[in-house]
Structure formats: C-alpha cells, structure tokens
C-alpha cells in the first residue's frame, strides 16, 4: 500500500500546508555588499564577529538568526517542538552548540548545502503529520571555516579556478507553523544521491547539477506538473556553470525551464566581487531563500515557486582518496500565502 500523502516516486503533498511564519538572515560583509545586500536583516563586518575563532563566529551567527526568527514569529523558545539544523563543519558543530544554548528538542541534519531545503521538507512532514505545531529551522556556513576544512588556509596565496565558488558567510533561521499567515509549503520532493563521476572538489556546480536536474524531473513526473505551474524554479548553489549544466540536462530530457530558472549562488554576488562562478555553502541557499525569495513572494512578484536545495556530498578525506563527489537535491514547493 502506498503511503496516503505520497505521490509518484519521491514526492509528498501536505494536507494542511505548513506556514513559513517567520525568518531571519545574518550575512558577512562580502554578501552585504552584493546585489542582495538590502534583503538581509543583519550584516556583520568582522569575520570573527567579536569571537576568538571563526567557528565560534559561525555558531553565534546561527544562534542569533534562529533567535531572531523565533522573536519575529511572536513565539518563545518554549513553544518550539523541534529544532532542525545543520551546517558544513565536521560533526555539524555549529548546529550542535546552538542546540545546546537554545535547549530545544533537536534533530541534527546534514545535507551539505541542501540542508535548508532538507529541513523545510522534514519540518513540513512533522507538522502535517501531527507531530509538531512549531518547527525552528537553522543553517549556517562561513567562508573561513569552510576554506580551512575543505581547502587551504585563508591567507595561503593560491589561484582559484574560474569555475570555483565562494562559500557564503551567513546564517538563516526560519519558523514553520501548522497555522498562521505567510507563504505555505505544499509539496516536497526528496532527492536521491546522484553520482555522474565528478571528482574535482573545486567544481561543485558540476557535481551537483545532475542531482538538481534529477529531482526537478522527478518532481514534474510525480506531480504531473510542468514549468508552466511555476513562476520560478530556484536552485541553491549550482553557480554559473552548474546552472548551465542542469539546464542542459533538463533540455536533453525534454524539460526546458530556462526562462524561469534562477540560482541563489548566481544571485548572491556581483561579477566584480571576484567570487568567480558564484556563491556556495549552506548559507547560500538559506539567506537568499529567507531574504530575497520570500520577500519577493510577499510583495506578490512570485506566487508559485519550486525551491531546490543542492548539496555536494564530499569530505576532505573522500576527495583525497580519489572518491567521486555525488550530489543531492531536495525540492520544496512554496506558494504565496
């Protein structure tokens, strides 16, 4: 027997679509100076954020963004049933220490840069399944903590290839609720891990594009919808070349979404900011979704959006051992409330 809220192979629909009650974003200086600078709630100019290490700075950003989201929802931490959070650092320490400080029942998640959309999909399921009234979501990333974990020390003088992406420094918090005013989540398509043999850890867009295309196609097949049902399909952090690759795969399979296709990684920096192929990191999809995207929906510029979080599932160890870099993508349908 098929689960009552399952449609097709990978999609779930929500009987009482959960509401995005509130959200908050904090970003670093570079993001603040980018084209979406005005859409963020707080811009920090000190990459240490008055802390002793970049890791502590990232954790502090995450905690503040999540607390800000709870305040804006008019709630207190006691009202939150579950906290779903994750980040890029080993053993998701930013999320763990935030959960320690917030003292809310915590489900730690790792979906690489797709963690926000993974959290939204799971949060919506928990609410529509009757297991929670309020869900608090948070994700973060920091350029310096990601660089030192995955690549080189920050001050090391190395040339980055043109297809490399820049990890977004930032954090976002979001509160989902069973009822209230705001945009709603109507469907979620959980992605499979897709591996088309990419091995270059500097070329994450190419590693993630097949997963993004796969999830988008399954979403269309499962729901019987087409691109005409959406004003916008927005991916997390494919970057300039990854977006082009996803577009090409989709066209080869008979789905042309090009005119309504955007990518958070492409939007977050201007070309002259020297970020090369665009932004990446958990915070990339998160701050653009919780800032720009949901603000545009509130203004009525978009009604029906398919948001697709994209993640590259590598570790510094796996790339050194010559393993491929598989990708994952989770899609969520957001309808203006």
């Amino acid at each position, binding site marked *: 027997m098929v689960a009552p809220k399952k449609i097709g192979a990978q999609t779930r629909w929500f009987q009482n679509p959960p509401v995005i009650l509130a959200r908050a974003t904090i970003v670093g200086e570079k993001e603040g100076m980018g084209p979406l600078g005005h859409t963020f709630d707080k811009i920090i100019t000190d990459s240490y954020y008055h802390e*002793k*290490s*970049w*890791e502590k700075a990232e954790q502090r950003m995450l905690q503040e963004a999540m607390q800000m989201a709870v305040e804006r929802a008019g709630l207190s931490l006691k009202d939150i049933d579950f906290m779903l959070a994750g980040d890029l650092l080993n053993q998701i320490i930013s999320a763990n220490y935030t959960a320690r400080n917030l003292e809310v029942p915590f489900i730690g998640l790792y979906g690489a840069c797709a963690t926000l959309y993974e959290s939204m999909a799971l949060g919506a399921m928990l609410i529509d399944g009757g297991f929670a009234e309020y869900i608090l979501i948070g994700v973060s990333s920091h350029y310096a903590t990601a660089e*030192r974990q995955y690549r*080189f*020390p*920050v*001050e*090391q*003088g*190395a*040339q*980055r*290839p*043109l*297809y490399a992406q820049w990890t977004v420094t930032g954090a976002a918090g979001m509160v989902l609720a069973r009822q209230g005013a705001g945009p709603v989540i109507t469907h979620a398509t959980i992605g499979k891990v897709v591996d*088309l*043999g*990419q091995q270059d850890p500097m*070329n994450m867009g*190419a590693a993630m594009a*097949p997963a993004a295309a*796969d999830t988008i196609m399954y979403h269309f097949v499962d729901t019987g919808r087409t691109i005409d049902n959406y004003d916008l399909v927005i991916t997390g952090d494919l970057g300039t*070349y990854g977006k*082009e*690759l996803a577009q*090409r*795969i989709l066209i080869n*399979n008979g789905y042309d979404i090009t005119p309504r296709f955007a990518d958070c990684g492409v939007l977050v920096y201007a070309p002259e900011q*020297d970020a090369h192929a665009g932004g990446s990191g958990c915070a990339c999809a998160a701050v653009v979704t919780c800032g720009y995207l949901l603000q545009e929906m509130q203004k009525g510029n978009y009604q029906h959006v398919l948001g697709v979080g994209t993640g590259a599932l590598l570790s510094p160890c796996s790339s050194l051992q010559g393993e491929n870099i598989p990708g994952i993508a989770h899609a969520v349908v957001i309808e203006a409330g």
Partner: protein
Amino acid sequence: MAQPLEIQKKQYKKLVDEIKPRPPVIRNTLGAFIFGGLIALIGQFMLNFFQGQGLSINDAGAATSSTLIFLAALFTGLGIYDEIAKYGGAGTIVPITGFANSMVSPAMEYRTEGFVLGVGAKLFTIAGPVLVFGIFSAWLAALLYYFFR
C-alpha cells in the same frame, strides 16, 4: 536518463568539459612572469646592496633570503600576500616568498587550536611535501653522485 550509468558518465564528462571555462593561460603566464620576475629583481637589488655593505657573496645571499622571507611573512600577516598571489600565481608561489607564505598562513590559521597541536602540528601542512620530496631528491642525487662520479 535511461542509458546505462557508464555512458551517462561519459556523456556528462563531455558536457562538463564543454561548459567549464578555460583558465586564462596567457594572462596567468604573463602575471607569473611579471610578479616572479619582480620578486627576483627586488632580490637582486638586495643582494647588490648587501654586497655593497661589505658582505661576502654567500653572506649577502643569506641576508637576501632572510629579508625576502621576512617581507613575505609580514605581507601574509597583513593579508596582502594572497591578494598579490591572485594575480601572480606561480610567480608568487615558486620563489622563496611563496614558501614563507605557505608556512605563515597555516601558523596564523591554526593558532586557535593551540600552540602544540595547532600551530606546531599544522605548520608544515602545505610546505611539508616540498620538504619531504626536496630532501628525498637531494638524498637520491647524493647517492647517485657517490656511486657514479
């Protein structure tokens, strides 16, 4: 995507190679030539200066290396070296200044993990392979020289 995975992978690799931007080789080579040459030129001026001060050629060479290493370390600490390296590329990595940068940058970065297991253990993360294979090649060359001179 009904084709077998191996074919999909091959096709995808072709697509990635088609879309991936080519590195600007001429610009990079020119940058490496200019910045690498500039560092060498500055070194030559220093060498001449130290010799003019009465140092022997060997002592002047050592004084020049130390001064260049000091300057590279200082510029790394001030956050300037990686900005120059963005344009200099190999021209800023290959000279002795690049070696200094590759030691100072992890030293700064891993300070947060303490002096022994942070700075001490991570100091050679980038320069380590250069030393290991440099010393190994020297040993190999010496061995060949010993047997075949």
